[in-house]
Structures are given as C-alpha cells and as structure tokens.
C-alpha cells in the first residue's frame, strides 16, 4: 500500500473502529488520534478492540480537540509524525476522521495516488478570494486573537472580538507567511508533509496558529503552499457544507447519490446510516479509474441552501412568514387584474378566458361572495367562496389563490365595490398586470334603472374608493404594470385597450384574438352623469362623456402606461 491514514476520532467510537478496521484490512497503516475528551476507560476499551491490528494501527499522543481550536492541528501533527516515522516508505498521507467513510474500494484510491506520486490534494485558497467564511470572520481569523471557545463561551468570544476591533488590534503574521484556507481534510504527499513538519520556522508558526481561529482549515493549507511542488486544490474527501458552514450529514437514502459522485471518501456519515457502512464493509462501490466528481451532486445541496435562505416566492406557510419587504416576491406567479372591463361587456370573463387561455375569475373580492371562475363555490386548494373567510385575511386569500393557481395564468376582476384590502399589495407587486377603466362603476348604476338622485351617495362613495385605489397605483411604491383609461378614453377605442390588456396578461399568445365581446348599451350615460353633476356629485373619474350620443369616432388617444420605477 502506498499511502497511510491519520484518523481523528472524537465520538461514535464504534463506527470509527469499523472504519479503522476497514482501512487496515485493505493494507493501509493507520494512526489513530482519540480526543482527550474521551474518557480513559472508554479509550482503553477502544484500543483493546483494535488490538489484533497492532502492526498497522497505532495510537498517537492525545490532545483536546475543540472545534475552532488548536488541538485539532496538534493532533494531526502528532499523528502524521508517528505515521511517517514508523512507515517511512509511504507515498501519501490521507487525513480522515472517524465519520469519514471510504465509498470506493481502497485499492482504487491506492492506484489513483500511486499514479500521482508528487501531487498534494489539499484545498487551499487565498483568504480574500473566497466567500466561505461564516460569521463575518475571514481575514480577522489571522489578525485577531481567539482565546475563548466559540462553542462554550460564545459571549466572551464575541465580546473579545468586538473589543479587539474597537481597539484596532492586529497581530503580525510570521515573516514571509501568507494565509490560505480550505477544507480540513487533505491528502498530502509524504515529502510535502515531512517538509511542513520540519519547517525551520515551525516553532514560530505554531505559536502564531495557536491563537488563530479554526487553524485546522488554514495551517496545512498555508504551509502546503510553501513546500508543495504540485498542488491540486481540492479535497479527495467529499464534504458538503450548508449555509451556516456546517457539514451536511449523509443518510442511507443518499447512497445512490454518493455512488454517483465517484468520491473515494465522504463525510459526514450519520453514525446510524447502516446501509452506507454496510456498503463500505462490502468493499465499496467500484468505479474503476474514474476521477471523483462531486460536482455531479452539487445541485441537491445548492437547492437546500436556496430553499433555506430564499424560499419559494409567494409561499406563506408554517415555516416561512417573511417580514415586509423580505418576501422575495409577494405572489408566486404573474397575474392579471381587470377593473371596469366586466362592467362594460356582456360575458366578458368568458371572452377573456377564451382569448387569453388564462383562468379568469369574477370579482373575487366582491362583498357577497368570492366569484371564482365558472361560478365554482370551492376552488383549487379547497378555497371557499365564503366572503367572511376570505376577509379574515384578504392578503393571504390572494397569495393562496395565486399559489394554488400555479400552472395557469390567473386573472380576476376588481373594482370599488370590492373589499379593498389588497389595493396596495397589488399595486406594489411586480407580478400584477393591472388594467383600469376609471369611472366604469357608473355603468351598473345607469343600468340599474334607478333615478340619479337616489344613486348620488353610492356613486360618491364608489368614486372615493376608486380615487384612493388609483392613488396607490400612481404612488412611487407601485411596481405593478399598470394601465389606466378613463371611461371616456376607453369608449373612444375599446378594441385597442382590450388588445393591450391581452398582450400584458397573456404575452406571446398566437393567433388573432376572437372578436371583442359585445358592449352593454350605454344609451343615456352622458345624460345620467350630467344629472349627477346637477345634483352636486361630479363624477370626474369617468372622463368627459358627451351628453348627446357620441359623434363618429376620432383616432384613439394613446393610453398612458405607469412605468414601474426601477
């Protein structure tokens, strides 16, 4: 065997023994370091269990290994020194832990290393050039002092860091020394490792690293740069980190994934992942001469981070309730809001559904009930048409509707009669495509046949509500795509307005739209509005509707588009 293994063990000793036995059975010399936190009796029992392998499995002097502290480096040094001393003929030294599990046959790793005799496999990157660090400490790992344990004395740790920052304390690096960082788990050639361990500057460097934070990720990584002839900056041990810099655990259901990665060794394995340990005991999954390619399974772990950090847009659920502004999208998908169109056309929702291919609801915020598409009383997601349930949380109702309707473009009608809870939300939502015909509420009033005198109060109220809504649409906070026509402007060129809304809501729809729907009769609208004016209620949002029936058509005025602010 051309390489030896240094194994650091601190818990799950039974599993560690299994792994050690596996390496040794394959012919590798192994030096084991057991954390001094493990009780003496337990250590003796552990050592006795491996007694039959005493020609190949050695135990080095024990250090206290605390995460983030110097002990881990000291342990590695002791282990490596013992291994090189007792087995001088080795080509490489592999650093592993008790929860690192060989996935491929050890002979394949041996062949791989034998074919690359002077190569050092150690991830080693300039500190300033990688975003790996967690907790805001990257270069400061090397320039501050860290005498307190991060795990046990967090408060003191944080205070002391803050104090040093405040005082502007900076440690000086040893002369000619540049810090590098990378995975703790490496495989160095024996020549490089010997050079590192007998570095003439070592006492000074060791003294310096005792107060560096997480030195196990930088000590060998930096010194390898000084002594190696050929560095492959990657680790042969596959290890995936989550967004907090904590390694992902592998379970039995990861086995196909681990095989696909082609990695020689993986960590960390959950100690109870029986199938993975069984696979190891059976000799591992052979992959011939293939080089490891952990990138193949990156996606799974990248998705996990994405889910944990950004979540699914437009989803509100038991473990995701973003603070205002942190939603990463108020709704899950683009949707259309049409205001006033249904009042002006017979069978408008059916026509729009046909023309756009979207799911077109009626007034889902109507005071009586939710007008779901096709008159349904229950809709997707088992949403009820009950108005009280909807108004219990109007915003959640809208976000639920869009979430449940993923897959089809959702469109709904809106107007001043409706509950206005979401007025600002849709204005601020970049997913919303809003088309407004202001003053269209006058049309149902006209068609009710009741005299203007008895409708004045109602009209005034509707106009006020609509004016407030338009103020939201025109505010600098509005991010929706918004088009507004007055009723008069719309009547000048209805087909153009409809075509614009169709292209906003269902862009790229092939073919000419079906012929526009029939407009409701508007005879007497001008007279009706004038009567309101005469009664003192000025319907200014309708625009200028002539009192007499309209003259022959003029060219259409251009609708204006409220552009989203960048």
């Amino acid at each position, binding site marked *: 065997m051309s390489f030896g293994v240094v194994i650091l063990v601190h818990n799950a000793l039974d599993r560690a023994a299994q792994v050690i036995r596996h390496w040794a059975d394959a012919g590798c010399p192994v030096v084991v370091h057991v954390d001094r936190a493990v009780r003496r009796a337990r250590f003796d029992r552990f050592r006795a269990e491996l007694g039959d392998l005493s020609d190949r499995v050695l135990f080095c002097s024990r250090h206290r290994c605390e995460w983030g502290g110097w002990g881990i480096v000291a342990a590695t040094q002791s282990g490596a020194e013992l291994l090189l001393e007792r087995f001088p003929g080795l080509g490489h030294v592999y650093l592993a832990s008790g929860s690192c599990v060989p996935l491929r046959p050890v002979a394949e790793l041996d062949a791989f290393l034998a074919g690359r005799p002077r190569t050092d496999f150690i991830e080693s990157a300039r500190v300033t050039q990688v975003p790996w660090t967690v907790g805001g400490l990257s270069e400061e790992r090397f320039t501050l002092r860290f005498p307190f344990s991060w795990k046990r004395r967090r408060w003191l740790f944080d205070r002391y860091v803050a104090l040093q920052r405040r005082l502007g304390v900076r440690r000086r690096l040893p002369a000619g020394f540049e810090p590098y960082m990378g995975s703790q788990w490496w495989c160095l050639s024996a020549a490089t490792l010997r050079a590192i361990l007998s570095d003439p500057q070592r006492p000074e460097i060791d003294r310096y690293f005792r107060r560096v934070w997480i030195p196990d990720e930088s000590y060998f990584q930096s010194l390898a740069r000084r002594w190696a002839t050929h560095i492959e900056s990657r680790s042969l041990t596959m290890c995936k980190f*989550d*967004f*907090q810099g*904590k390694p*992902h*655990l592998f*379970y*039995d*259901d990861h086995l196909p994934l681990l095989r696909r990665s082609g990695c020689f060794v993986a960590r960390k394995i*959950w100690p*109870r992942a029986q199938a993975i340990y069984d696979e190891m005991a059976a000799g591992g999954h052979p992959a011939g001469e293939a080089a490891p390619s952990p990138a193949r399974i990156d996606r*799974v*772990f990248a*998705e*996990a*981070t994405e*889910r*944990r*950090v*950004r*979540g*699914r847009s437009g*989803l*509100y*659920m*038991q*473990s*995701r*309730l*973003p*603070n205002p502004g*942190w*939603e*990463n999208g108020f709704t899950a998908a683009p949707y259309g809001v049409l205001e006033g169109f249904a009042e002006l056309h017979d069978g408008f929702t059916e026509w729009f559904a046909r023309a756009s291919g979207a799911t077109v609801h009626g007034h889902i915020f109507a005071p009586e009930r939710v007008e779901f598409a096709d008159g349904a009383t*229950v*809709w*997707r*997601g*088992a*949403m*009820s048409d*009950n108005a*009280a*349930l909807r108004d*219990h*949380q109007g915003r*959640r*109702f809208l976000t*639920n509707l869009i*979430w*449940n309707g993923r897959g089809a473009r959702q469109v709904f009608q809106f107007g001043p009669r409706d509950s206005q809870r979401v007025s600002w939300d849709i204005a601020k939502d970049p997913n919303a495509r809003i088309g407004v015909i202001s003053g269209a509420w006058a049309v149902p009033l006209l068609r009710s046949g009741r005299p203007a005198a008895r409708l004045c109060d109602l009209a005034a109220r509707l106009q006020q509500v609509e004016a407030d809504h338009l103020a939201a649409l025109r505010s600098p906070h509005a991010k929706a795509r918004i088009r507004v026509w007055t009723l008069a402007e719309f009547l000048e060129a209805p087909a153009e307005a409809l075509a614009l809304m169709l292209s906003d809501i269902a862009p790229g729809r092939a073919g000419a739209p079906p012929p526009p729907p029939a407009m409701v009769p508007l005879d007497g609208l001008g007279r009706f509005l004038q009567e309101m004016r005469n009664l003192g209620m000025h319907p200014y949002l309708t625009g200028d509707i002539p009192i007499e029936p309209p003259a022959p058509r003029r060219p259409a005025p251009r609708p204006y588009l409220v552009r989203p602010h960048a």
Partner: protein
Amino acid sequence: MKAWQAYRLRLQRRRWRLRALRKRRELSVVADRTEKIRPADILVLTTLRNENARLPHFLDYYRGLGVGHFLVVDNGSTDGGAEYLAAQEDVSLWRTEASYKRARFGVDWLNWLARRHGHGHWCLTVDPDELLVYPFCDTRPLRALTDWLDASSIRSFGAMLLDLYPKGPIGAQPYARGDDPLDIACWFDPGNYSLSRNATYGNLWIQGGPRARSFFADDPERAPALNKIPLVKWDRRFAYVSSTHMLLPRGLNLVYDEWGGEKTCGMLLHTKFLDGFSDKAHEELQRRQHYAASAEYKAYAAALEAEPELWCRWSERYINWRQLEVLGLMSRGNWT
C-alpha cells in the same frame, strides 16, 4: 423585546411551572416504568380519554419512528384503554379523574411529566389522533431528525396540524381497532390556510382547513388554531403555554423564518374525523371540558346534525411528505 415584557413573560413561565407542580398531585401512578428511559431516548407525551380504538396504531406508529418511551396521562377512560396501556412495556401511565379543563386542557399535567422525566430528552407531545410526519420520514428514523436538530443547535420543531377527513359522511366507514386511520381519513385541504404572528409569544397563528371552511365559515376568528410545536429538546425550565401551540421561553416559538427562507418543519396528520367522532362530539359537549366553553364542539354538534361531508372536489388525497412539501404545506428547509 422590551425588558418589561421579557420580565412579564418570565413571571408567566414561572406561574405555569408552579401550576404544573401543584397539578402533579392530581396524577396517580398506574404503571411507572420511567427507570427504563435511556439517556438518548425520544419520549412521547400524551393525555387521553377513551381512545382505546386508536391506541394500538398510535403506539405502533411512534414505535416505528423510533420513540423510546411513552408517558401517558389517562383522564378517566372507561373503555379499557388504560388497562391496555398499563400492559405495554414502553408505557408509563398516570391516571386522574380531575378536570381536564382546570388542568388547562392537560397542559399542566404534561408540563409536569416533561419537567420530571423529559429534561434533556427530545419530547414529542401529541394527541392520540395526531401522527407526526417530517421530511424523509419514510427513509429516516426520528432520531436522524433530532440528531440533525441537535447538530444545528435547534431546540424546537414545528409541525402544523393537518386535518384529514374521509370522503363521504364522517363515520360512514367504520374504523376497527388497530387499523391505520389514514386508510379512511386520507383527504385534506391543500391550500386555504391563513397565518399571522402572535406579538406576545412570537409564534404563528395558523387557521383554515376543513374545520374553518365547514364549521366556522361565518366566524373565522374562532376557527381552531393549527400551529403546533410538538417536538422540543426539553429543559426543565420550559413550559407549554396553550396546548402545544406555543411555549415559553418564547425563542422556542420561532420555528419559522422571517427573512424569506423556509425552515425545516413537519406536519401532524390529524385523524379526528373518523367513525365515532359524532358520539365524541356530543359527549364532549356534555362534559364541557374543552377550550372556549367547548365552542368548537358546539359548532361540530350543530353541523353534524346535518351529516356533513368535509370532502370537496379540490380535496387532495394524502400520499406522503413529499406531496405535502410540493403543495407548500411543509418544507425540508436545508436538511437534505
């Protein structure tokens, strides 16, 4: 959080813990096997009354997940369930005839048992009609989850209550003792939940589902709360405040992310709506031992006269946890 508010919550927690201490006198031991609890065991705590039919499946389900020991308070069962439980090797049983309502719906009793036996253990507090599902529950035991939570320094795990119901009238399909209730009650509402934050305790308040839709449509404010935090790495200083909806100290209630991400969470499958529910609703209405003057049971009793059907055309049939995740009801978070 203002110091004053923190102080008041601290006083309140003290009050609930003292109350649990006082209420422990109401419990008398039937079978105490707590010396069998091993240091790393996961414990299930439950209080029940006349749930004999569900018990075999309930115990088997949680044994299958790897639960080590059950701590059960029997509140005056008369259906033989207590005898059955007392004979189980991994159950410790206490009995009380005292008022469920005056023990704050069992919370005081369970706070006491958790304090006495749960310190340092992962404690799962569930009712006999609640089945926990969590990410990867089909391939990984509960211990995998709690180990990961430990490694991530997470002390509490949220699992929203998901009401399951049968197709057709409730009770049309008979439930036999030992059967999997999910064979009958396997439908749920996938997307009609509302949620808001409780400013005092910091927990979410989730409502919706079939109960809100069918029984509380005209008074949604009073619909039952569905947010639950059933799995906690217990410390003797902790206390549930109201059912398992929220705890003190209130940091334990932060099982949701406020900055856009999704935290890992599970789901409690609530199989209340089975054969026998109607009788139970009437009985509970007589006993008047439930929350808000049994308003929930009043609503049920009124609606049940009409043999309601909770199923609707958009109900989903339960398949597995992955389905719940795709629907956006739960999330793996960054556990993968």
